């Protein structure tokens, strides 16, 4: 059966995997597997911005996806960006295979505050649900507490809940039902 693969891109602390496995296991009826960690591709670094192009990381993830990967989610410590936007919490291929979430701006330390595991776990869970949701065709939700609502700053991430709203949850369930296991 095809699986959801999780992979570290760069330096990712071990504590996050259990958090992600718990959250993903609750919402996605898929086997969850880990891949060996990958380095951040050198070409992703933008020296002017001192950030990493998410597109390059996603390309690398796509290239490294095992044949049985229905989805592959990279978790990275890199601060992600695209040419047009100053930063991203994560990015995904809409209705595609690949997604990436950055820990960088989810950590309290980025904002000059002492680290806090519960806060990081909550934020990461929300962003993981958000980006994987995109790979299953969900778009941004107008319900501000839904994990699929758009977050353009950390306050908006904190305003969301660690779950999908009924509409998005139902859409996701219908997606799995229609795929009859063959996601």
């Amino acid at each position, binding site marked *: 059966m095809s699986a959801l693969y999780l992979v570290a891109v760069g330096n990712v602390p071990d504590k996050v995997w259990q958090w992600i496995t718990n959250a993903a296991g609750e919402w996605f009826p898929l086997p969850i597997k880990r891949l060996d960690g990958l380095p951040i591709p050198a070409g992703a670094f933008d020296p002017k*911005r001192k950030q990493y*192009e*998410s*597109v390059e990381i996603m390309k690398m993830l796509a290239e490294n996806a095992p044949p049985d990967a229905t989805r592959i989610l990279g978790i990275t410590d890199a601060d992600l*960006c*695209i*040419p*047009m*936007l*100053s*930063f*991203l919490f994560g*990015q*995904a*291929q*809409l209705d595609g295979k690949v997604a990436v979430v950055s820990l960088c701006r989810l950590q309290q330390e980025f904002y000059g505050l002492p680290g806090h595991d519960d806060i990081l776990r909550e934020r990461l869970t929300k962003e993981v649900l958000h980006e994987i949701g*995109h790979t299953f065709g969900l*778009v*941004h939700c107008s319900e501000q507490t839904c994990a699929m609502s*758009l977050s*353009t*700053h950390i306050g908006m991430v904190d305003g969301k809940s660690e779950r999908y709203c009924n509409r998005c949850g139902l859409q996701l369930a219908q997606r799995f039902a229609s795929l009859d296991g063959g996601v």
Partner: protein
Amino acid sequence: MKKNWPILVVDDEDVMCESMAAWLREDGYRVDTAPNGQKAVELAKVTDYAICFVDLKMPGGMDGIETMMEIHRVRAEASVIIITAYATVDTAIQAMKEGAQEYIVKPCNPQEISMLVSRILKLKKLQSENAILRKKLTRQYRHHDVITKNPRMEEILALTQEIASLRSTVLIRGESGTGKELIARAVHFSGSRAEKPFVVVSCAALTETLLESELFGYEKGAFTGANAQSKGKFELANAGTIFLDEIGDISPKLQADLLRVLQERRFYRVGGTEEVQVDVRIIAATNKNLAQEVQQEKFREDLYYRLNVIEIRLPALRERLEDIPLLAEHFVQRISSELGKEVHGISPAALKILMAHDWPGNVRELENVIERAIVTCRNGTLDEQDFSWLQHAPTQQNWEIPDVPLDELERRAIVAALERKHGNVKEASAALGIDRSTLYDKLKRYEITH
């Protein structure tokens, strides 16, 4: 998905196009990308993009400003956002001058882009709703909504289109309920004044003094209770159309005042000393025979000729019997939906009753009769039982014959037939059941001119 608002991203750098497109797709938009201006214009020719993000500097071919101008040539409504990595005041000013909606420097904050897109689309949605409402309002009074297959009505509808953009005064004649206001609105909303006010004044509903202040407005202190200056209907209709219904009922004084407005397009407010100038098209309507009123010196001849520049005479419903099934079906659909009743049509037997009725109250009466039938109907179809009361109602066929010589009755019948058939002797003779030569003899005998 927000597929109704497609977005185009134009940039020579593939990574810029694809990453921006991917980010916007996550928001539910349909996004296309183009690597240069030429491709962007090609895409814009086939897709009505709501927003185009266009990079200012694209080597080879068109730059961002040229691309924007070309896009605007094919899609004038598209909002173009110019993107640049190098902010200079001059290029920003040039971009805005040439029609860019916004000018942004990359990279920018996701919140900024998100708010920009939603602000532009919110405005577009309002513009689109506004356009739809205007269209609906206009369409409501266009000839499409006058239900007819009667040749005379079709001629009238064609005439309303021909005269719509003129300023000439129109006089609409017709019995009550024939749709005089509907035709007046069709004239107004089909012409160049459609965006301007259409003001209705029912002249018969008001006393002379009230009508005067209603039409011309009044100054503060003009009469007891005039606590502030008030604009009259003529001023309110400025640049648009004023519809003077039941014009045959206005007093001699108001006839004189109205004549002056028609001649000079100027008037004084009640109690005022300053002239007010207006540009108003006048459409008047009456159910009276104004020519006859002039002969009887009840209506000013000069005003009659001023009003009667273009005359439209609306036939009574009994003169357009072929329209009864169409109108009845239309009213059933509309009224049942308004009343929330499941009524889908009219039985042939019920239609027979409607066709046999004389309809002294014309289309308005038919509408009321259908509404009453729908209210009391217990089936999904209106049948003869729903209209049984109509067969016993008094109609024009029950008219009382006045105590006059037989010759006079015949003369009146001939005049009435000629009027109904617009002076067409062939049709009038058929309606009277006599041949054409007999009718000519009688016209001569009774000295009737037609």
